[in-house]
C-alpha cells in the first residue's frame, strides 16, 4: 500500500530544531530528489526523541539506524551512502559510552532502556473503561494467583523481599507496612488507597487512575487478602472528575465479573471498595489527616504512633498506600521479587514515575529505574531546557522537597540521595528552572503554598511558615536585612524539628535548600537589592535607553513624582531615588525607550 520503501525520521524537537534540524530536512529532501528517490524515500520531521544532548537526531527506517549530531552538511552523505548504497555512516552512528562501540541498530541502544514502565505499563495501551483489555494484559492474574496459590504470609514475604517502598513520600517499605497491619488483631480492618495527589506539578496518580484503574483495584484486593480486610476505600481528590468516573466504571465491571465482592474467584475471600472524596486540602495526603477526613472530620493530622496500622479508619487497623505504589504490586507478584529488586539501586528498588514540568522541552510523565541521574532525566528524556536557556535548578518532591542544582545532576535518583541533598522523593513532581527563575521567589512561592495549606493545628507550622513567608516577601521587596538570612535558617530548622506532621516537617525544605545552593542569590537580594533573574519587580529600576529615546518628554510629563528629567529632544533620565515604580512612563513611551531592569 505504501508508496515509500524507506523513511528518514528527523527530530523536530525544540532542541534539535535549534541545531538546524529543519534545514537538514530540506537538504535531505533536495538530495533525495536529486537522486530521483523523492517518491520512494520519505523524510519526516518527528517529535522529540528525548536525546537532545546528541541532537539533531536522524533515524533511518526500516533498518533502525540511529544517527546523532547530524548537521545539514551531512545530508548528502546520508543519501548517497546510506540510502543509495546501503552503507551505514560510521562517524554519525551513536557510540555506546560504556563499550565505545558504534551502535547500528537503535533497538540495542541503552537509551531506550532509560525509561521503563512498570507502574505505567498499561497507561496509554489499554482502554481504561474495558476490563477485558486489562485482563488481556494479565490483569487480575496476580490476585487470582495469590488467592489460589499463596498464603497472606507468603505474599507479604514476597513483597518484603522485593524491596518496594511507598511512592507517596518518605518511602516506607511496603511489605513491612502490610505486615504491621496484618499483625494487629481486630474484627475489622481497612485498606485505603491514597489518591489525594496534591503536590502542585505532580499528576502521575491521576494518570494511573485515568489510564489503568483496575491495577489499583487489584492491588487493594491483594492487600485486603494479606492483612485480613474485606473493605477498602479510595480517597480521591474531588478535582479529578475523569479519574472518579473511570474508577466508578472499573468498580462496576470488577463487581460484575466477581473480581470484587463475595467469594472472589471461588476462594471464599470477600472484598469490596468504596470511594471517599477529598475536598481540597493538601495536608490530607498525610495518612492520619486523610483518615480523619474520611471520617468526615477536619483533615488535621494526629501524632504517630499510633500508626494507622494499629488504629486507623474508625479506630481499626488500616493500611494506606498511594496509587503509584499500588500500581507496582501486581507485576511484582507475577514476575517475582527478584525481578523487581534487580531494578534500581541498593536501597531503592524498581522504578519511579516523575512528572516533568517547568522550563523543560518535554513536559510529561516518565518512568525510570531508581538510580537514573537527574541529567539523564532532564537532558535526555526531558529534552533539555526550553528555548536553549541555561539549566539552573530542579525542584523535586513538591512543596516538601528542595531545589537541586547543577552539581547534583549526576547524582543517581533514589530516596536516600535526595534526602541527603536537602530534597526528597515526594510524589515525584520535577519542576525544572532556568536562568530566568529567581530562587528566592521560588522559595516564596512554595511557602505561599504551605501557608495556605497548613492545617493550623501546630504552632510552628501555623505561625512559623507565615513568618518565613513574610521574611521572603521582605527580601523580594528589597527590605531584607543580613540578620534575616540567619533567621530564615533558624526558623526553618526549628519548624522542621518541631512540627506535628510531615507537612510542617518538610515545609522549610524549599527555603533551606535554596539557602544552601543559592546563597549568593539571597545575599544579592539583601545586600545589593538586585534580582539577577529579573523576577522581583521591587528590585528593578526603570531605565531609559539612549538609543531609543527621542526626547519627546511624554514620560517626564506622565511621571507623577517628577522623577524623570531631560530637555526636549534630549535623552531623558530616571532618578531612581524619587521613582515610585508606578510604570506610567513605560506605558506612555511610544518608542520602547523605557525598560525595567
Amino acid at each position, binding site marked *: 500500500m*505504501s*508508496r*515509500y520503501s524507506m*523513511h528518514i*525520521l528527523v*527530530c*523536530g524537537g525544540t532542541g534539535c530544531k535549534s541545531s538546524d534540524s529543519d534545514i537538514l530536512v530540506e537538504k535531505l529532501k533536495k538530495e533525495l530528489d536529486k537522486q530521483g528517490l523523492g517518491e520512494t524515500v520519505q523524510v*519526516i*520531521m*518527528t*517529535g*522529540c526523541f*528525548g*536525546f537532545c544532548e546528541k541532537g539533531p537526531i536522524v*533515524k533511518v527506517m526500516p533498518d533502525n539506524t540511529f544517527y546523532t549530531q547530524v548537521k545539514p552538511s551531512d545530508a548528502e552523505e546520508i543519501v548517497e551512502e546510506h540510502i543509495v548504497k546501503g552503507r551505514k555512516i560510521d562517524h554519525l552512528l551513536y557510540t555506546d559510552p560504556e563499550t565505545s562501540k558504534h551502535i547500528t541498530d537503535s533497538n540495542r541502544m541503552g*537509551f531506550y*532502556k532509560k*525509561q*521503563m*514502565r512498570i507502574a*505505567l*505499563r498499561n*497507561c*496509554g*495501551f*489499554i*482502554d481504561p*473503561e*474495558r476490563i*477485558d483489555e486489562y*485482563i*488481556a*494484559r*494479565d490483569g487480575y*492474574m496476580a490476585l*487470582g*494467583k495469590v488467592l*489460589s496459590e499463596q498464603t497472606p504470609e507468603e505474599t507479604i514475604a514476597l513483597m518484603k523481599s522485593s524491596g518496594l517502598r511507598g511512592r507517596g513520600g518518605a518511602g516506607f517499605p511496603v511489605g513491612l507496612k502490610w505486615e504491621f497491619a496484618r499483625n494487629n488483631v481486630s474484627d475489622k480492618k481497612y485498606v485505603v488507597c491514597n489518591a489525594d495527589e496534591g503536590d502542585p506539578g505532580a*499528576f502521575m496518580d*491521576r*494518570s*494511573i487512575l*485515568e*489510564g489503568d484503574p483496575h491495577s489499583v483495584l487489584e492491588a487493594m484486593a491483594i492487600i485486603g487478602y494479606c492483612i485480613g480486610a474485606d473493605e477498602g476505600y479510595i480517597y480521591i481528590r474531588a478535582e*479529578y472528575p*475523569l479519574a472518579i468516573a473511570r474508577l466508578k466504571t472499573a468498580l462496576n*465491571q470488577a463487581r*460484575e*465479573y*466477581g473480581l470484587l465482592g463475595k467469594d472472589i*474467584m*471461588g476462594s471464599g475471600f470477600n472484598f469490596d471498595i468504596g470511594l471517599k472524596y477529598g475536598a481540597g486540602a493538601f495536608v490530607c495526603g498525610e495518612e492520619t489527616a486523610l483518615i480523619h477526613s474520611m471520617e468526615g472530620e477536619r483533615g488535621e493530622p494526629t501524632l504517630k504512633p499510633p500508626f494507622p496500622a494499629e488504629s486507623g479508619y474508625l479506630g481499626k487497623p488500616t493500611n494506606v498506600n498511594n496509587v503509584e505504589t499500588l500500581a507496582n504490586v501486581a507485576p511484582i507478584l*507475577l*514476575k517475582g521479587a527478584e525481578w523487581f529488586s534487580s531494578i534500581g539501586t541498593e536501597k531503592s528498588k524498581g522504578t519511579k514515575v516523575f512528572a516533568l514540568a517547568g522550563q523543560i*522541552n*518535554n513536559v*510529561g510523565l*516518565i*518512568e525510570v529505574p531508581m538510580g537514573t541521574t537527574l541529567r539523564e532525566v532532564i537532558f535526555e*528524556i526531558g529534552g533539555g531546557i526550553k528555548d536553549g536557556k541555561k539549566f539552573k535548578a530542579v525542584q523535586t518532591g513538591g512543596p516538601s522537597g528542595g531545589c537541586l542544582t547543577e552539581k547534583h545532576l549526576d547524582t543517581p535518583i533514589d530516596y536516600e540521595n535526595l534526602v541527603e541533598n536537602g530534597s526528597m522523593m515526594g510524589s515525584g513532581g520535577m519542576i525544572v528552572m532556568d536562568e530566568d527563575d529567581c530562587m528566592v521567589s521560588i522559595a516564596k512561592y512554595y511557602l505561599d503554598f504551605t501557608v495556605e495549606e497548613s492545617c493550623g493545628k501546630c504552632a510552628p507550622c501555623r505561625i512559623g511558615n507565615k513568618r518565613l513567608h513574610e521574611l521572603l516577601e521582605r527580601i523580594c521587596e528589597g527590605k531584607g536585612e543580613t540578620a534575616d538570612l540567619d533567621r530564615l535558617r533558624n526558623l526553618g530548622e526549628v519548624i522542621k524539628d518541631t512540627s506535628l506532621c510531615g507537612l510542617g516537617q518538610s515545609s522549610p525544605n524549599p527555603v533551606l535548600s535554596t539557602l544552601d545552593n543559592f546563597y549568593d542569590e539571597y545575599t544579592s537580594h539583601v545586600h545589593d537589592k538586585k534580582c539577577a533573574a529579573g523576577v522581583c519587580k521591587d528590585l528593578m529600576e526603570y531605565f531609559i535607553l539612549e538609543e531609543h529615546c527621542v526626547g519627546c518628554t511624554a514620560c517626564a510629563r506622565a511621571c507623577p513624582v517628577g522623577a524623570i528629567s531631560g530637555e526636549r529632544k534630549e535623552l531623558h533620565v530616571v532618578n531612581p531615588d524619587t521613582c515610585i515604580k508606578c510604570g506610567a512612563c513605560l506605558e506612555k513611551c511610544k518608542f520602547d525607550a523605557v525598560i525595567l531592569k
Partner: protein
Amino acid sequence: MNKIKSLSDLKKIREEQNRSIELRSKGEAAEKLVQVKVAMATCGIASGAKETMEFLMDSLEKRGVNAVVTQTGCMGYCYAEPTIEVTMPGKEPVVFGNVNTQKADEIIEKYIKGGALVDGIIPVNYETIQTKE
C-alpha cells in the same frame, strides 16, 4: 457478563481477549482493521482529544476505512497533547503528537490511506514490562 469463578476462568478470558486482539492487529481476518487509540486523560481532553476522537470516528467511517477507534489513558507526552497511536495491520504502532482535527485529517489521508508517514511522529523511547507467564 459472567462471573469469574476461578483462576482458570480468568485465564480463559485472557486467552479469548488476546486472540481477538491478535486477530485484529495481525489482520488475518478478511478485513484489514486499522487500530487508533486516543489518549483521553485530563490533559489530553483539555487539549481537545475528545474533538479529535470524534472526528476520527466520523471521518474514518465516512471515508470507508475499516478501523476501530478506542480511548486509552495518558501516554505521558503532555507536551504534545492530544496524542494518538495508529496501528496499521501488520505494522508497529506509530504515535502522533499534537493531533487536532486538521492533523487527524492529514493522518487519515496520508498515513492510514496512503501509507506515508507525516510529520509529528513521537518516537517511543521506553521499555515496558511484559508480564506473560
